[in-house]
């Protein structure tokens, strides 16, 4: 008799792919109470983002912003990183899947490997280094990149000859040649697909001669060239002769918007921005004047602040040439000749010293196979098939998708979708939250207040990294002579598991109450050692680290004697400080288990619904009488979603959900408190009765509005309307519209100008959408779109193609020669300068439709109540443009939808889910740990001078009712600025007290002064 499958859901999730999206989804879910298995087929997570040098539009170093995520993922108790592994199959159903994995052998035991690198240095076999995009070589035994997580090496069996040298040199005995592939199974409740994509291989383009010309590189290769950890250490050089190029060209749309050399008709959405970024950064690196030229068809800088980035690049001298290059000819020994036709129709030729091919995304065979194995449907371009209204849901229930497999997109979009997928998983699995997670049981902390300091010193050899230069035994014996020291030892690897065990024993045996480890940097293992202390019943702040590796043995390799003397100094300093370390209290405060969402449009409704589905109480505050926001005025999206039907369903779901309270005609009039404990005052209804809401998190979804133009005869003539107006007109009066013979549309009305330099992102697709609708109504109608750039990014490009094939005409106009609208008797006329004929063309029109800008809603009061910064255009500022696109800089306040920046409905929905995910993860913890190494004001000497209030970068200190400064330990970030600035020296920073720092210095200068 068949056993019925247990319908109980599993509180664990499998995330496939450890790129930036995979990591974000994992962190959200692990924080929210689910156990995460993060599977990646590479030996290290990080994905493409780890290969980038800088990221647009902030020009942040990619590794710098991704490193904290790498470390967090590696450290998280509830994330299980499974690298070198692929998913073979997925059985079961939503809530209860069984995943079959195949773990490929690494041949190195990660538990033992300390990443010292000796194996790699010895390895005699080499192969092309894929991480550096084949610009250089790597060994068979290698670490993918220096900051790789999990931290450790791997043997590439395909080129390893099996000579055994690495085993001989490995002091940690981590090499294991007998490692075998293993098949494992895992029970999970949901799956998130974030495998990313490869980039187009340009060797298919014969005319670009990519394979034959070393100075023609792909954009990813260029990233590696610019990167300080790349093959050229960040020096701008070209591969052929390592000279710094003086002229570089970027060719856009390589492998995208192309149905000739390949089948990738879509736009890859990121290449315009990354080409500009590479050009700008290359100029920074260059010693002389670097001439950069970008050859493009449409400049798709559509995101938040992207247009400003484009403008700045133009000011810095980056040339933009609208032309698609056909071939790259070799010129001279290693230069490159490009020919093109310019705007005037003249043939031009230019010789460049380097050409970068802006390659687009392409879903590789491996991913297509993976998708088949997981049973999800792909669209015609092999991206995951999703719906406009459910952008992270695949065709298989319980399997979600995010990142570039969902469609071409940039990092912020990927991160948003990743959080969105986490929210969807959490809604599915919320009844089994916290059932699979690991909790660490820690013993009670011993009271050491009556004890004399008893310091234990552990000096690490770090294999030969320290021991090979510094005389570790001498340092150890020196430590024995220092005051308060009751135990010394040296270890081969102090961070190894077995050392932790023996350390714990020694601490108990000798009643050690302060621990000093002389080894590497606190950035690597401070948390590990603090954990060891906690496990032994000591406060984690009783730990001190002396960096005798990064700051000693690694930089003084040529002078072992002096390096040893320095190590002794460093240990003496740490021991002196350690004796004065005090245990610090951290306390738990309750997080109010309720969310507040401000704004009831598409984003707000989705956010509130998902939070409710995650099991939380939520209150939705909407200032209008009706819910729905801007979507009330939309009828269909470009991919055919019936917006009104969707909205009606959504509103009903929200109104009937028992966890949701809806307040319409409600205005926020007061806001106070801090993360986990907010209080908002709302005036509700025409009666204006007051409500006080206590909540733990806040989500801003206040939306945007369509700009009402003051040009082109708008509001003077009924035939001139915005796209929104046209949408309504088509819905109510399509018979009238069908009679039109010619419709002219003008793009960029109110955008990309001096008053509003931004791009409003959605107007191009709005125009194409309506143009296609008009053509369907009346195929004989002439539809003309006057544009500056057609920003049909990502999969929208297909609609652009369709429009052209249906005979919709596109004419470009330049910003300095905008079209004119005029009346001629009863007729309406539009005049514009055609680029090809280079003369004005006048046409009569039955309707003139303006692609009007999307502007931020009026949120001045709300912003000042919540103390949330907005940019100069009134859109709310996120905490970080790339990696924290739904968080505000004030903790526990989140942002989604067009309140953040103009975007498509599907993008708003994804961002709303992301905000709900973050909000849910925060609430799920139920308690907040505050205190520890934070600043505390001693009110006695406080002169209320306000210096701390003025200097705190986080705006934390407040003058309280007693007229002295007070610092909320929940908000203090422990940076120490107020402590050093206080003129009365009356603020103390836990773990950085004056006496501790003094002891450090006096120990250093012992005998000197």
């Amino acid at each position, binding site marked *: 008799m068949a056993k019925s499958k247990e319908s109980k859901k599993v509180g664990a999730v499998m995330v496939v792919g450890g790129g930036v999206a995979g990591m974000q989804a994992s962190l959200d879910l692990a924080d929210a109470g689910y156990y995460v298995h993060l599977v990646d087929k590479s030996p290290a997570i990080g994905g493409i983002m780890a290969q980038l040098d800088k990221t647009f539009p902030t020009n942040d170093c990619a590794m710098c912003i991704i490193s904290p995520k790498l470390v967090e993922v590696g450290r998280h108790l509830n994330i299980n990183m499974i690298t070198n592994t692929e998913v073979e199959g997925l059985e079961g159903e939503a809530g209860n899947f069984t995943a079959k994995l195949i773990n490929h052998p690494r041949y190195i035991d990660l538990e033992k490997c300390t990443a010292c690198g000796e194996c790699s240095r010895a390895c005699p076999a080499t192969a092309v280094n894929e991480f550096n995009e084949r610009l250089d070589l790597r060994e068979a035994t290698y670490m993918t990149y220096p900051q790789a997580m999990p931290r450790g090496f791997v043997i590439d069996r395909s080129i390893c000859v099996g000579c055994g040298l690495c085993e001989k040199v490995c002091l940690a005995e981590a090499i294991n040649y007998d490692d075998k592939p293993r098949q494992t199974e895992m029970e999970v409740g949901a799956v998130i697909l974030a495998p990313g994509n490869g980039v187009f291989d340009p060797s298919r383009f014969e005319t670009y001669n990519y394979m034959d010309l070393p100075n023609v590189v792909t954009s990813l290769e260029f990233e590696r060239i610019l990167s300080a950890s790349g093959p050229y250490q960040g020096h701008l050089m070209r591969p052929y002769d390592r000279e710094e190029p003086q002229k570089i060209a970027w060719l856009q749309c390589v492998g995208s918007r192309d149905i000739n050399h390949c089948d990738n008709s879509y736009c890859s959405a990121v290449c315009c921005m990354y080409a500009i970024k590479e050009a700008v950064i290359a100029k920074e690196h260059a010693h002389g004047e670097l001439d950069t030229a970008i050859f493009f068809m449409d400049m798709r800088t559509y995101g938040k602040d992207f247009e400003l980035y484009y403008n700045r690049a133009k000011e810095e001298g980056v040339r933009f040439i609208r032309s698609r290059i056909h071939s790259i000819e070799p010129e001279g020994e290693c230069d490159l000749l490009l020919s093109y036709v310019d705007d005037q129709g003249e043939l031009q030729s230019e010789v460049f010293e380097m050409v970068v091919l802006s390659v687009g995304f392409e879903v590789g065979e491996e991913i297509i196979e993976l998708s088949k194995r997981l049973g999800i449907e792909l669209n015609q371009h092999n991206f995951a098939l999703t719906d406009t209204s459910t952008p992270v849901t695949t065709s298989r229930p319980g399997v979600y998708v995010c990142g570039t497999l969902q469609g071409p997109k940039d990092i912020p979009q990927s991160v948003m979708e990743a959080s969105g997928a986490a929210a969807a998983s959490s809604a599915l699995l919320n009844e089994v939250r916290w059932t699979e997670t690991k909790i660490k049981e820690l013993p009670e902390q011993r009271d050491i207040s009556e004890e004399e300091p008893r310091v234990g010193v552990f000096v690490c050899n770090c294999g030969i990294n320290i021991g090979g230069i510094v005389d570790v035994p001498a340092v150890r014996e020196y430590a024995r002579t220092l005051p308060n020291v009751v135990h010394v030892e040296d270890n081969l690897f102090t961070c190894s598991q077995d050392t932790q065990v023996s350390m714990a024993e020694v601490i108990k045996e000798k009643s050690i109450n302060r621990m000093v480890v002389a080894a590497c940097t606190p950035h690597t293992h401070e948390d590990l050692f603090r954990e060891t202390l906690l496990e032994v019943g000591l406060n984690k702040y009783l730990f001190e680290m002396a960096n005798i590796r990064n700051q000693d043995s690694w930089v003084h390799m040529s002078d072992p004697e002096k390096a040893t003397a320095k190590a002794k100094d460093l240990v003496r300093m740490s021991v002196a400080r350690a004796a004065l370390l005090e245990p610090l209290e951290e306390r738990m405060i309750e997080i109010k288990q309720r969310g507040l969402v401000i704004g009831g449009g598409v984003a707000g409704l989705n956010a509130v619904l998902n939070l409710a589905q995650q099991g939380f109480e939520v209150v939705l505050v909407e200032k209008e009488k009706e819910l729905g926001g801007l979507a009330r005025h939309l009828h269909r999206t470009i991919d055919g979603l019936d917006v009104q039907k969707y909205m009606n369903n959504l509103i009903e779901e929200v109104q009937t959900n028992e966890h949701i309270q809806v307040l319409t005609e409600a205005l926020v009039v007061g806001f106070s408190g801090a993360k986990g404990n907010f209080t908002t005052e709302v005036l509700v209804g025409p009666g204006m009765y007051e409500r006080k809401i206590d909540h733990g998190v806040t989500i801003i979804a206040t939306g945007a509005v369509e700009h009402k133009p003051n040009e082109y005869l708008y509001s003077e003539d009924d035939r001139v309307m915005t796209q929104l107006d046209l949408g309504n007109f088509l819905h109510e009066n399509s018979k009238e519209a069908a009679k039109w013979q010619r419709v002219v549309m003008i793009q960029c009305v109110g955008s990309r100008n001096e008053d509003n330099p931004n791009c409003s992102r959605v107007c191009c697709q709005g125009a194409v959408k309506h143009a296609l609708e008009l053509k369907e109504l009346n195929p004989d109608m002439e539809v003309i779109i006057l544009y500056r750039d057609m920003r049909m990014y990502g999969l929208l490009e297909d609609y652009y193609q369709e429009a052209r094939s249906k005979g919709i005409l596109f004419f470009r106009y330049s910003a300095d020669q905008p079209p004119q609208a005029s009346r001629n008797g009863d007729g309406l006329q539009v005049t514009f300068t055609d680029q090809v004929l280079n003369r004005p063309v006048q046409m009569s029109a039955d309707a003139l439709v303006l692609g009007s800008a999307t502007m931020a809603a009026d949120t001045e009061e709300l912003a000042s109540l919540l103390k949330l910064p907005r940019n100069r255009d009134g859109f709310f500022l996120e905490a970080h443009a790339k990696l924290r696109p739904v968080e505000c800089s004030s903790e526990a306040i989140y942002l989604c939808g067009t309140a953040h920046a103009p975007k498509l409905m599907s993008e708003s929905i994804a961002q709303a889910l992301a905000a709900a995910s973050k909000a849910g993860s925060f609430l799920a913890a139920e308690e907040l740990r505050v205190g520890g190494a934070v600043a505390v004001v001693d009110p006695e*000497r406080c*002169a209320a*001078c*306000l*210096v701390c209030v*003025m*200097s705190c970068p986080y705006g934390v200190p407040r003058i309280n009712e007693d007229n002295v400064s007070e610092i909320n330990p929940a908000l203090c970030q422990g940076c120490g600025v107020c402590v050093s600035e*206080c*003129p*009365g*020296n*009356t603020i103390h920073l836990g773990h950085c007290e004056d006496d501790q720092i003094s002891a450090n210095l006096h120990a250093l200068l012992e005998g000197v*002064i």
Partner: protein
Amino acid sequence: MIMARPKPIEEIIDEIKDFNKVLIAGCDGCVTVCEAGGVKEVQVLASALRLYFTKENKRMEIDETSLTRQCDKDYLHELLDKIDDYDAIVSLACGAGVQFMAEMYRKKPIFPGVDTCFIGVTEERGVWAERCQACGQCILASTGGICPISRCSKRMLNGPCGGSEKGKCEISPDTDCGWHLIYERLKELGQLDFFAEPTDPKDWVSSRDGGPRKIVREDVRL
């Protein structure tokens, strides 16, 4: 608040160079707020002096303390049991505090550590500006809340002089013309009729011109 500025350290070194044991005494009042003489500045100054004298190979012991205020005898009393340990005191209080300390501890040399500058306000972190010259007869009611005594370089009472250009005083393009500010303010308040008649001459006896001043309030005396 009284605003002061730390004295150049060379001056302070010159003040104490012939002594061997010196106490630096800060004040938790006004000089703390303008970051010239609070506990932090005491520590920094003491450190710097120690470094200097060590380098010079001169035996010099520098100790640190700070008093709640130096303009009240009760607080100055706190130094009573230790003042004899020192050869000299450097007080970082304003001029009033330095003098009061000197009056109380007549046998001990008391040196000033700051230059007391003016009565003023904190415009922003690190920027303090003069607002009041303590003339003793406040006329702010009629000048729109802007004082011509402290904001006008020539202390004029009836409007700007010919040196006022584009709202700035002729002595420096960074100095606002006080009367220009007053004019604009009176315009906003609708009180431009102030300029209709010349003002009466000011009685300067209540200002410093009348000699050292004292306030005696019988209603609060014990």
